């Protein structure tokens, strides 16, 4: 279809003199800039979430904290009782593949670098750990899990690092939604501007278009001329926008990496993401062309 829209070369409608040309290019430039920055943000947040999901969130550790009490026997018994209760509880939680308590041997091995050989964990007030494997592709609401778990087993605690990440992911999700809304708005506003400029231009060149019609031109013939012009303006505006977007992305990610090494340094864009950003001028060119084409077709119906 797009080939049909831009074929045939002669430009009889003098669109190159339209004063709206500069306005449209600036408009598209700003739109592409907003679009590009929002898109880059969304793409890097996506990448971040993916990394977290894959590496950090696949597993979870629950601790059963020992209560310091004079009766050591009773304390150990209570901790172990709560541990097995927690294991049971966790295994029933949707999305959990398997919860396994770490044995004394495993604990010993974990603690060995700090405590040296020959220390028995069961004698120490060290926390008991439960290793929880999350089912692949499942999202677990960690804060809710932690809340319910503590209600049942008062000595249990879920690693709060993970709860924090969980909240961050939720935030990122709503951010993504917001970005979608921004992207749609940007496209809608740009198309709207092209729609009105095209209509104004049709009125302005009414005389020329009437002559074309009288010579036997179909509406498509006029629409092609507008589509070709809009394609050019959309592309150029897109290029200018891109020229602004690229340094902005670098500045933002530069600032971001200064904040917090651990998490935000994941924000580098992949090759694919860059490809998408570099194709924005093609995208703006396409949107402009289609909008102009159908605006002309739609508007000329009112002419004889």
């Amino acid at each position, binding site marked *: 279809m797009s080939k049909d829209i831009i074929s045939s070369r002669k430009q009889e409608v003098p669109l190159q003199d339209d004063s709206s040309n500069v306005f449209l290019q600036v408009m598209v430039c700003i739109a592409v800039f907003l679009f590009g920055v929002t898109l880059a943000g969304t793409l890097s947040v996506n990448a971040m979430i993916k990394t977290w999901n894959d590496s950090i969130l696949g597993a979870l550790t629950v601790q059963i904290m020992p209560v310091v009490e004079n009766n050591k026997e009773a304390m150990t018994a209570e901790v172990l009782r709560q541990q097995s209760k927690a294991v049971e509880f966790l295994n029933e939680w949707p999305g959990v593949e398997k919860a396994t308590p770490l044995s004394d041997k495993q604990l010993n091995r974990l603690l060995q670098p700090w405590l040296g050989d020959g220390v028995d964990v069961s004698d120490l007030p060290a926390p008991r750990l439960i290793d929880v494997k999350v089912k692949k592709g499942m999202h677990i609401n960690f804060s809710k899990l932690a809340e319910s778990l503590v209600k049942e087993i008062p000595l249990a605690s879920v690693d709060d690092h993970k709860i924090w990440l969980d909240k961050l992911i939720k935030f990122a999700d709503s951010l993504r939604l917001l970005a979608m809304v921004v992207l749609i708005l940007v496209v809608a506003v740009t198309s709207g501007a092209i729609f009105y400029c095209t209509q104004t231009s049709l009125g302005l060149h009414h005389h020329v278009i009437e*002559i074309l019609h009288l010579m*036997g*031109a179909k509406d498509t013939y006029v629409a092609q001329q507008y589509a070709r012009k809009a394609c050019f303006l959309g592309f150029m505006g897109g290029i200018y926008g891109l020229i602004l977007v690229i340094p902005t992305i670098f500045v933002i990610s530069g600032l971001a990496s200064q904040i917090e090494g651990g998490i935000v340094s994941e924000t580098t864009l992949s090759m694919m993401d860059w490809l998408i950003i570099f194709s924005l001028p093609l995208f703006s060119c396409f949107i402009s062309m289609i909008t102009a084409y159908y605006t002309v077709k739609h508007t*000329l119906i009112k002419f*004889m």
Partner: protein
Amino acid sequence: MLFKTEGERILIKSVSDMDMIIGMQNVGIRYGQGAEILSDINMALKRGSFHFLTGKSGAGKTSLLSMMYLSQKASRGIVKIFGRNVTYTDRDSLALLRRKIGVVFQDFRLLDHMSAFDNVALPLRVCGMDEREVRKRVTELLQWVELDKKIKEPASTLSGGEKQRVAIARAVINRPEILLADEPTGNVDSDIAYKLMKLFVELNKLGTTVVIATHSEKLITDFPFPRLHLQNRGLKIYRPIIEDNTVKGGIHE
């Protein structure tokens, strides 16, 4: 009035539907909410016929022609071009009909920002003709109307007579089946006027149906063709009588 309706009856009946290339039935036209400029127009022009269209200034010649070249719709009545009722013809089909109609507008309607060449090439390009063929045909025709020196000039810089010749070249470039010319010889000297009339006659011999609106009595007497005359918002047809090999105006049919 009685006489007029009599004339119309003959006019309609004498042309069969097959032969009729332009037909009007009870056509009226008006602008906005004003009174009708033309009322109850009936006509049936035969394929391959040649008519002059006359009438005082403001009688409605341009208005009548504009219905024929599908620029205006009749306010009432039926207009048939190439046998098709234009009221029930969709936009793209109207465009295709217009390609078979060449028009010389009274005010030329050239694209001022484009060259003489591009103006004449327009009807060909609109049909998507190959650019080499366009070049060949347009150059040839511009030579014939003695404008080969002005081929690249923008239309806005041409003189009145030059514009008129460009307009005529544009009207005939696509070898139209119908040629409608509104005062086509008003701005040129009598030599060129004669040459252009010869062109129209030649085209007519090749089968083109021609209607020429004119004020020039000389043209009408020099070329013995029937005459559509607009008067009192109505249409009458006159046929020429030839006495001693000279045309003496025309009589009412």
